């Protein structure tokens, strides 16, 4: 085994976004040796792209807010498939996590009396998102990064993990390569935390960067852990659509939180046409009331633009399909219209949405203070992931933890905007704490050398293939298939077709060949990531076939309504003994009585 670079730590954290870094800080504080694996450079993870804010019921702007309201908003947004214990912990612990960031140097926008300012966001009853302009994610990741580098963490930048290592039932480390030289590394650890983010690269139109190829999902699945809720992929309603090269880049929900409205080509506020019964009582019934809400009128209800993302994305799709879309196949998102309402509109927009202003000006020649943006849905987030214990974030494999986007449970069928950054903090912290605890109570496990060698051979084989398939082409084809056949609106026949295509692509992925050598070879890395993308794409499709109803982010044309029976289970997948995907409908445990009462009271 001499040819592998070896490392030994107590806790190994795979992923260096918000969840990974928060876990690292916590584990390190517990006094164990921590390694962090970062697929890119430190500080570049997708967290940096988060714009709107961190949801936490601090009640700084509206003192009617508290954890109970946040809890019930999260459950309602998730259509009650959420792990209610996670939703409870999240709502209770998020405020302290935000304050902790401030103590580490994060600077949020302020209220008049100097406290942390909070803004409106979709599905949140009260202004709840702690933010700094529209670059909250940057503030968060930089704070965690700058705090973390003084804690003695070993950070492995530009390393990618391709396999988890097991000793009998427990996880004892991970195997991967460094991008720069293409050497293989063995990371031995007593506990491993997955914090790898999402699967957005399975789709053509996405806000996600190259990194989000479902690595954690796939690693956990192949190691034998259960994944849950994988049919729920969030399409953010507002991505850029024009020019083509920017398609998919996120336009923050904060635009709507600050008073931005959606219109079709006829200038109609189409969101008023279809308000889901679950939200009827909380939604404004006039444009005037909606405007007052965004300006902080506590007696007003929120405008329909701030309904949940699943619903807004589907409404946009419908406008486009029925011929009322914008010239490039989206709808108009207008913040410039507030000129008619406030005297300092231009400054206000630039102040509250600086990076949106910058982004449209530079990439699309649009001045958002003067004219509307064209937007359409973009793949943004996966609610599904590794099934974990709510309190400890441990999966069903001893020693394997997961936090953030690659874990399932908190968001159920649909995530509320702003609940992701808070998720990363609350459950990153918990995963770090419990992983450190686990590590302290155990010793390093044994390594299975044969597995390492076969993983290495399988990775290197791509250099010997004959050149019949190009990794980029296979990836692009897969993205087209998922976009077209397993997208916002799904039906059985199309998904069956998708499965056939995925099988063909899987075969093609094994014939993929790469040029050049092992040093910083993007083609090779793309080919290796493709394996994970194919695994998660198949799991998403099969889970989506299994859920024969429409709920949250999962919409079936052939089963367009919510089915009462289906609210009682999550779809869980595991790898069977013969390598087959085994799906089960796992009953959701009854909601604890006190929490059930909160849900009832808040209805």
């Amino acid at each position, binding site marked *: 085994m001499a040819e592998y670079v070896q490392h030994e730590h107590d806790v190994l954290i795979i992923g260096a976004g918000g969840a990974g870094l928060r876990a690292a800080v916590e584990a390190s504080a517990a006094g164990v040796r921590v390694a962090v694996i970062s697929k890119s*450079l430190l*500080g570049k993870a997708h967290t940096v792209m988060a714009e709107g804010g961190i949801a936490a019921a601090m009640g700084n702007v509206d003192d009617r807010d508290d954890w109970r309201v946040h809890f019930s908003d999260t459950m309602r947004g998730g259509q009650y498939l959420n792990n209610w214990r996670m939703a409870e912990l999240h709502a209770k612990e998020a405020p302290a996590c935000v304050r902790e960031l401030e103590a580490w140097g994060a600077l949020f926008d*302020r209220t008049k009396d100097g406290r942390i*300012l909070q803004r409106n966001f979709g599905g949140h009853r009260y202004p709840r998102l702690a933010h700094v302009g529209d*670059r909250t994610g940057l503030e968060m990741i930089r704070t965690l990064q700058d705090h973390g580098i003084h804690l003695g963490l070993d950070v492995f930048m530009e390393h990618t993990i391709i396999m988890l290592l097991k000793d009998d039932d427990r996880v004892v480390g991970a195997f991967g390569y460094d991008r720069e030289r293409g050497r293989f590394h063995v990371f031995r650890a007593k506990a491993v935390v997955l914090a790898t983010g999402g699967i957005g690269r399975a789709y053509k139109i996405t806000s996600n960067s190259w990194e989000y190829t479902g690595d954690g999902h796939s690693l956990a699945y192949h190691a034998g852990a259960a994944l849950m809720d994988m049919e729920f992929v969030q399409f953010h309603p507002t991505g850029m659509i024009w020019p083509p090269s920017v398609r998919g880049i996120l336009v923050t929900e904060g635009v709507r939180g600050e008073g931005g409205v959606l219109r079709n080509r006829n200038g109609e506020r189409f969101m008023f046409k279809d308000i889901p019964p679950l939200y009827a009582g909380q939604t404004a019934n006039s444009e005037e009331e909606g405007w007052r809400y965004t300006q902080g009128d506590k007696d007003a209800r929120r405008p329909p633009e701030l309904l949940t993302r699943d619903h807004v994305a589907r409404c946009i799709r419908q406008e486009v399909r029925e011929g009322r879309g914008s010239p490039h196949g989206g709808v108009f998102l207008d913040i410039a219209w507030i000129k008619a309402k406030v005297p300092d509109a231009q400054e206000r927009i630039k102040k509250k949405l600086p990076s949106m202003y910058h*982004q449209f000006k530079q990439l699309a020649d649009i001045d958002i203070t003067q004219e509307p943006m064209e937007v359409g849905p973009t793949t943004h987030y996966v609610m599904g992931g590794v099934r974990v214990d709510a309190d400890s974030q441990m999966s069903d494999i001893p020693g394997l933890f997961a936090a953030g986007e690659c874990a399932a449970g908190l968001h159920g069928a649909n995530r509320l905007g702003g609940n992701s950054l808070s998720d990363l903090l609350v459950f990153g912290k918990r995963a770090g704490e419990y992983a450190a605890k686990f590590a302290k109570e155990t010793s390093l496990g044994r390594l299975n050398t044969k597995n390492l060698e076969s993983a290495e051979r399988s990775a290197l084989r791509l250099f010997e293939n004959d050149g019949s398939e190009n990794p*980029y082409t296979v990836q692009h084809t897969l993205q087209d298939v998922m976009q077209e056949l397993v997208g916002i609106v799904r039906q059985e026949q199309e998904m069956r077709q998708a499965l056939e295509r995925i099988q063909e692509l899987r075969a093609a992925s094994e014939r993929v060949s790469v*040029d050049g050598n092992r040093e910083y070879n993007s*083609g090779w890395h793309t080919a290796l990531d493709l394996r994970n993308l194919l695994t998660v794409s198949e799991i998403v499709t099969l889970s989506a076939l299994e859920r024969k109803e429409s709920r949250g982010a999962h919409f079936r044309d052939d089963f367009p309504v919510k089915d009462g029976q289906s609210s009682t289970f999550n779809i869980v997948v595991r790898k069977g003994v013969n390598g087959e995907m085994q799906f089960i409908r796992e009953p959701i445990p009854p909601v604890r009585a006190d929490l059930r009462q909160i849900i009832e009271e808040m209805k």
Partner: protein
Amino acid sequence: MATATFRIWRGEKGRGGFQDYTTEIASGMVVLDAVHQIQAEQAGDLSVRWNCKAGKCGSCSAEINGMPKLMCMTRLNALPLDKPVTVEPMKAFPHIKDLVTDVAWNYLVKKRIPKFKPRPPDAPDGTWRIAQQDVDRVQEFRKCIECYLCQDVCHVLREHHMQDQFIGPRFLVYAAALEMHPLDVGDRLADLRKQFGIGLCNITKCCTKVCPENITITDNAIIPLKERVVGRFFDPLSKLFRIFGHGEN
């Protein structure tokens, strides 16, 4: 369909040369799109860093037609396409491969800067009260996406290779963000003067010109820090005070 030619630097560890690639271009394209297209169609092993593709992560720094820029924010319609567009790696850092350089030094520098140290909380619940205008004052510095383009053009680093004596504009901005943070009570002036080498900056403002976030690096961060250093160490009164008063170095 229209095409354009990209003259991309290929090679490893500083050895190599330019190679021309002609590829189709479409409306709205940025340089990074063209590089990706070339990677997918003609040069599978072409190395390039990128992440967000929206000017928010600072990964895709390169020198385009000799100008340090983010590839994701450089639109083709802003470049003359009648001749090849040159794309090269940043010059101030050790080369790894193609467009990728070794920026690890920057991470080591940051670690040396004394970290954020808040004053005691203002309220019994452990929170602080901060005025929005005090937040606004440092927001400019906190926008930094760590693309290191300012480090790339700084002649103290690029031409004089004084990495061991000078932390560069990025970290002067970082130090300014800490020094002017409304809660911070740390003191980095002695370090700035000595081991961080603030005196080596002679205010040519090259860094400010290339900043994709439009941070006024020299005027708003470096000069005020220089003034503080001068005020502390070279003002005759405070010098006396230092000798006979507190012995801060």
